């Protein structure tokens, strides 16, 4: 593996972000930012599953919880960069977009992609999460102690 661990961490972050992006959103941002480059499939989009594991008692021995659907693909740009995607659900278009972005992030347009696709996407997803967390917080019980009788 030629990637240094720093590069791996960056790559892990954007691939993880793209995997969780709402349907069609990454594509809309990418197409708003630039024309898509030509590419060749190394692995055409393919739908399969991943066995989700968990731990007994949250921290103990692992067990198989059940599967989730996953779409994956791999492609290479004419300039040689390889892009991979593994994303939740049955979403071939989104997998293609994610793999393209993954490949383009290894080229000189990475900074442009970061500001026009990844950062807005992350901001939108953070806002959506925060809105949900705020609704949960509003259902938090504020206990107040009643005056207790003393003997």
């Amino acid at each position, binding site marked *: *593996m030629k*990637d240094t661990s720093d590069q*791996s961490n960056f*790559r*892990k972050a954007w*691939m*993880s972000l793209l*995997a*969780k992006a709402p349907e069609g959103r990454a594509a809309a941002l990418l197409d708003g930012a630039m024309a898509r480059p030509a590419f060749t499939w190394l692995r055409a989009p*393919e*739908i*399969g*599953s*991943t*066995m*989700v*594991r*968990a*731990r*007994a*008692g*949250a*921290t*103990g*021995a*692992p*067990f*198989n*919880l*059940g*599967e*989730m*659907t*996953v779409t*994956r693909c*791999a492609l290479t740009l004419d300039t040689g960069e390889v892009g*991979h995607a*593994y*994303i*939740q*659900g*049955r979403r071939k278009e989104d997998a293609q977009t994610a793999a393209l972005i993954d490949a383009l992030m290894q080229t000189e347009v990475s900074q442009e992609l970061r500001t026009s696709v990844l950062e807005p996407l992350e901001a939108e997803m953070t806002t959506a*999460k*925060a*809105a*949900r*967390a*705020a*609704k*949960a*917080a*509003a*259902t*938090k*019980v504020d*206990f107040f102690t009643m005056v207790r009788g003393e003997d």
Partner: protein
Amino acid sequence: MYVAVKGGERAIENAHAWLAEERRGNTDIAELGIAQIREQLSLAVNRVMAEGSLYDPDLAALAIKQARGDLIEAIFLIRAYRTTLPRFGASEPVDTGAMACDRRISATFKDLPGGQVLGPTFDYTHRLLDFKLAADGDVPEAPARAAETGDVPHVTGFLNREGLIEEARHDDTPPRDLTREPLEMPADRPLRLQALTRADEGFTLGLAYSTQRGYGRNHAFVGELRIGAVPVEMDIPELGFAIEIGEVTLTECETVNQFTGSKTEPPQFTRGYGLVFGQTERKAISMALVDRALRWEELGEDNVGAPAQDAEFVLYHADNIQATGFLEHIKLPHYVDFQSELELVRKLRREAGVDQVQEAAE
């Protein structure tokens, strides 16, 4: 045993056509969309994902539509579809401590770090039919309040610090998988948990209830119940590192059970564990109670002969697709078997002289 019979193709085709028509119902009424089922019948969707053992809300919604709302039939459709998917691998064990909690309550500690968060629960509703729902209407936005950030710690961790509760010791043994190898006894805890998380909700609930009523009582408190989304991380062989491939909503229940100790274990609290796909609270609590009941042997407790303590009984009867398959097959033609039974009964009656007695009476 049933015997294949030929014929009936046209009747079957016509039955399918009528089924499709009945599924659609009165065409003056708007047709249900998959998105409507996914968004508005989400707890049914969650049950189908949990027991179908496949996390995909759109597929579960489609299955519910196709099954006309028969959830076990929908689960059957999901299980059948699941077998057609190539499996890309297994995830890293999810970290429920990092859950973005929609709900998080404890019945054992009032003031716990992170607080009691009720979430979108039925618990404090009056269970009175709300006729306003029969009319269309906009729902006002739920109130919001500034949320604390950071992970919400598990309640069992507090007890653990004092050594009052058994530890769930870290372990990295790859678990057996009952979708790949037939279920064999004895089943270790990871295998039991896999069987329970996809088990029929009604069966699991009934067994859990039986332990509460005294058949293998284990004095369970809900130490913690949490519902929320966790990321799923998988190691990608061609990359050489793990990435998050998505996010699933889970319900986790940890029970804290009284335990007076045994020959091998000191007096302490013990734990039952429930973890289920989706918002599936009743199932997760039931799973935790049954998990704890099944642990009698490893904790050195007595087997009092309760159904919930009998791993073979529980695990071989918990799967509603196996159960419904075997149950419903008896409605298929058994003409030859029955013919032989008929002959046998006639012969026995002749031997017993029953028919002659009847003739004489007439």
